[in-house]
């Protein structure tokens, strides 16, 4: 517990709308240790981004944390005011977003944006901040930083821009980084470089990283543990290797079946029939039940809780007991 940088307990994120209250994240619990990368996978709309945004305190109204607790290195942060959270953001927890093209302000040089962020969090002078910006740029692998620091975002390629975004996240040595699909918008060849960089930084600096993606391949290469989300809930969470080799939740099994390269042998690609339900019509009981081939009676009545072994499935539960 003492090593945990981020602890989330029973988090619930709601959007009050005219049609009623939508629950985008429902009962999610997870933790990330120093130097650990926790991957979060799931289909579009599963609630991955909302989980990250809730931790950062950046939910767009009317979205709000309805219940649950969040600790950052032992400090409770889910009840902090906007100002108190703002002080933490960038300093102790940082974010990396999907599209490096739009994450940077086009009208300021990358140097301006780095220096501004550094001076926001550390009490250093202009020159010192600029030196630190240069150091960060070379650390994230941007060649010729002394020249590049005065360039505008549009003068960088996508991969280089994402490195700038990572440098911005590192400005104040945060304990936690939430990376929301950091490679989705990039070329495949660049993706590996960026995930490799993230992994190196995480290990070297002992940061905790939440890596949100819908690419199981990225997770398998980068993450230590992985959580699988479905319709706002965690379906399964555990060590990457175990989860990839022996997935237990039927949804995870289907997810792994849909990935050709990881299973090794070239067997037929399976597809999970159907679609994830919309938030407005989540079925009763387990939200996966309409698409599940292994459902038992209980699945239609009661929502499965995440067990100690990290699976939320009645069928798996029954198997274990028998």
């Amino acid at each position: 517990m003492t090593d945990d940088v981020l602890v989330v307990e029973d988090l619930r994120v709601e959007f009050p709308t005219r049609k009623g209250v939508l629950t985008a994240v429902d009962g999610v619990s997870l933790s990330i240790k120093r130097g650990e990368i926790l991957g979060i996978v799931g289909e579009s709309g599963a609630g991955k981004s909302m989980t990250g945004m809730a931790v950062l305190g950046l939910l767009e109204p009317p979205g709000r944390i309805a219940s649950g607790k969040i600790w950052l290195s032992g400090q409770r942060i889910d009840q902090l005011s906007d100002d108190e959270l703002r002080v933490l953001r960038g300093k102790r927890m940082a974010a990396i977003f999907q599209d490096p093209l739009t994450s940077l302000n086009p009208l300021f040089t990358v140097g301006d944006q780095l220096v501004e962020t550094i001076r926001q969090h550390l009490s250093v002078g202009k020159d010192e901040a600029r030196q630190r910006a240069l150091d960060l740029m070379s650390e994230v692998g941007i060649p010729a930083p002394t020249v590049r620091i005065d360039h505008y975002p549009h003068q960088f390629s996508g991969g280089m821009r994402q490195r700038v975004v990572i440098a911005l996240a590192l400005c104040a040595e945060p304990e936690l980084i939430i990376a929301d699909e950091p490679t989705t918008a990039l070329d495949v060849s660049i993706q590996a470089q960026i995930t490799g960089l993230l992994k190196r930084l995480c290990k070297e600096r002992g940061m905790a990283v939440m890596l949100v993606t819908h690419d199981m391949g990225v997770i398998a290469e980068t993450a230590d543990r992985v959580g699988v989300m479905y319709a706002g809930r965690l379906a399964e969470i555990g060590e990457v290797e175990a989860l990839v080799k022996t997935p237990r939740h039927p949804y995870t099994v289907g997810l792994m079946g849909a990935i050709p390269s990881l299973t090794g042998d070239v067997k037929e690609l399976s597809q999970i029939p159907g679609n994830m339900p919309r938030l407005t019509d989540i079925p009763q009981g387990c939200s996966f039940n309409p698409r599940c081939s292994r459902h038992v009676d209980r699945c239609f009545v009661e929502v499965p809780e995440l067990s100690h072994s990290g699976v939320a499935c009645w069928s798996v539960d029954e198997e274990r007991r028998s």
Partner: protein
Amino acid sequence: MLAFLLKRLLNAAFVMLAVALLAFMIFRFFGDPVEMMVNEQATQSDRAELRERLGLNDGLLTQYVRFVGNAVQGDFGISYRNQQDVMVLMAERFPATFELVIVATVLSLLIGIPCGVLTAVYQDRKLADGLQLASIVGVSLPSFVVGILLILVFSVTLGWLPAFGRGDTVDIGWWSSGFFTPSGRAALILPSISLSLFQITLVMRLVRAEMLEVLRSDFIKFARARGLPLSVVHWRHALRNCLMPVITLTGMQIGNLIAFALVTETVFQWPGMGLLFIQAVTFVDIPVMAAYLMLVSFIFVLINTLVDITYAYVDPRLRSDASVKGGVANGH
């Protein structure tokens, strides 16, 4: 960049030629210039001689070319009314209009931009609602009504500010300025407020709309994730991204303001070009009218061209192609 500049300049020249054609037509076909210039006792041969001297017997194209040639040199002939060189008349009046328009523009930016940001940022607060309401009133009140109301309150009732004229001016070369005397500055206040009111609401609404758009963008979310205070996010990152359309609007509107100053100048008896034009119209003083048309159009075109060029400077993305590719090699 050079090609871009050239294209813009050619464009501008073409527009000016078209306007010159219009002004020429007014000059040539609105009544007979000869009849306007001679007095009743002139004989037929006097008139014929004048006609010949003015070149009115030449072909239309020749006359048009001559008109443009003269206009380029600032020669619009002699005013029918007081026999003075039209360009001299204009030059005397131009500083008054220009100072009025500049002050009105500065006012519109100084008041319009902050109001626009505030209404966008504090969308559901009383202040924002109040400003919104005020802006609706601002757009719907005609400018002469505003002018008269201002005179009524501040000149007639309170007696704080002069109701007409320009106060004392100081000559700097041919330019007469009202900025340097207390009475000149006092005289500027009411007309410039009255002229800028509509412009203020325009700027405010534009900034608000742009802000709402920009505030949704990713880099704003990321700026907040970097831990920047909201004031920095709003006033530095968001606002800067709204300024481009504001520059355009302001530029384009300077031409409009010069044209609209006509009304304000009439209400406040402000001795500018607009007042001169109104007087010219009542006397059918065609050369003055033609010169006014040409001059105002020239300012319009000049400003539009400058705005386009400024654009390229404010937004680094629009600058030269070479730096867009931006390798390490072509740094600074």
